[in-house]
């Protein structure tokens, strides 16, 4: 029963949000505001029940584990107090105190990330660009595998260097550097093209996911949705055709308003 009601509500809300495609409308506004409210309450629960309660209160004040012995660890007053200080942001008069907590977190992060980032984002990436490293699995392989691998390793190397040269700001892009940077921008364009193509894929997938929910997962509520949707789409197309006849041809869209 809960699932039946849930399905109808979920499908209704899904359609309300999709109505944004026509234009910004009260249904969309309603669903959007409901979403923000519910999501924020969810965050409150999460912060309280899985972090503040077990990690702070459960360590300093109250024993939450009936099977275990309890020894309060007063060191954890430090993050608790700093966390409360962080909340002084809500009070403009003493807002500046929150900087201590912020400095604690930001300073910690600044020091912490340098080593790992250097290791994994920089050193390892440079290492994997050396042709010798990339050719390791192919040493002693037959020429039919060796030669393409070698060509790929060299191309990869050239691409990495040219992109780096493109993002080099101390020299004008002229002469050799200009030529290299030119190759670099082509490489970047191929990379962005790949990213573009697959981003398109992602956006479509999201709609497919919702469509699948409406058509297949909404079983408890019957196949009403499939029928309703097909009818709705037909109406939309007929409306478009009629609109074409009635509209003056020069008028442009006010899309996505």
């Amino acid at each position, binding site marked *: 029963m809960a699932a039946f009601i*849930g*399905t109808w*509500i979920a*499908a209704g*809300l*899904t359609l309300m*949000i*999709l109505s944004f495609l026509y234009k910004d409308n009260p249904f969309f506004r309603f669903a959007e505001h*409901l979403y*923000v*409210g*519910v*999501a*924020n309450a969810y965050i*409150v629960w999460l912060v309280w029940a899985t972090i*503040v309660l077990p*990690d702070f209160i459960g360590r300093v004040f109250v024993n939450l*584990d*009936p099977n275990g012995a309890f020894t309060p660890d007063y060191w954890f007053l430090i*993050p608790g107090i700093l966390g*409360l200080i*962080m909340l002084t*942001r809500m009070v403009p008069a003493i807002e*500046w105190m929150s*900087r*201590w907590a912020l*400095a604690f*977190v930001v300073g*910690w*992060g*600044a*020091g912490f990330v*340098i*080593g790992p980032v250097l290791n994994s*984002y*920089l050193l390892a*990436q440079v290492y994997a660009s050396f042709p010798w490293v990339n050719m390791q699995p192919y040493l002693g392989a037959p020429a039919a595998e060796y030669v393409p691998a070698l060509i*790929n390793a060299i*191309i990869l190397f050239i*691409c*990495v260097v040219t*992109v780096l040269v493109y*993002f080099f700001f101390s020299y004008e892009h002229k002469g050799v550097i200009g030529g290299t940077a030119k190759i670099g921008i*082509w*490489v970047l364009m*191929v*990379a*962005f*093209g790949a990213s573009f*193509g*697959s981003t*398109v*894929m992602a*956006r*479509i997938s*999201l709609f497919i*996911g*919702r469509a699948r*929910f409406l058509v297949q997962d909404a079983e408890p509520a019957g196949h009403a949705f499939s029928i309703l949707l097909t009818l709705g789409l037909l109406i939309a197309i007929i409306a478009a055709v009629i609109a074409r006849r009635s509209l003056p041809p020069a008028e442009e869209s006010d899309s*996505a308003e």
Partner: protein
Amino acid sequence: MTFLRRQLPVVIAFVLGLFTLVIFYIPAAPMQGIGDRLKIFVTIIGAFAMLLGINSILGQHITKIRKKRPGYGYSWVLILGFIAMMVAWIPWWSVPPEGTTVYYPWGGLENNQGVFYWMFFWILVPMQATMFSILAFYIASAAYRSFRAKTMEATVLLIAAVIVMLGRVPLGTSMTSWLPDTGFWGSLRMEEMTSWLLNIPNAAGFRGIVLGVALGIIATSVRIIFGVEKTYMGGGD
């Protein structure tokens, strides 16, 4: 007062930043012990910071209702949604699952039971998922009217994009499945071209970007530690 407002945060950031930077190179247990503890500290502080966003959103909408600004009815929806979810979280609405004892009765998804979970799954999830699915339609209309090969760069980009779009779906790979598996002609198969494109030029392009990102992160971190960068503290004094 100025010290507390201006210098103290810089000092805190400097001490903590330098300490965590240095212990990265020290494997000894006493140092790592302090390091581990600090990690838990910053997580707890971060949790409190998450509440700040909620305060500002709720505050904004309560003001809107009080001043009866246009569209304040929607703000009521938001507040009611918030209250409903908070109430749903109260334990007596949910039945603890068979055979388990819920030690923290006022928290948890209760293993997929209860009203809280119901609201999560039937209201929060579908709406958040649908929000971005709208983009599928905009991509279609943008494909028609704004993805133009205006410059040489944009042309290269579009060609790469079309190859990836076709090479990443079964229909596209089926179009070239009549080509032989191996050899030169094999490398012209859609999935092979896509794979090469992704693995060689694409990987190299993003590697160049990642190297820049890494340098950027390190540079920002160094500036924060040494007090050159103070923007994170916000404006004013």
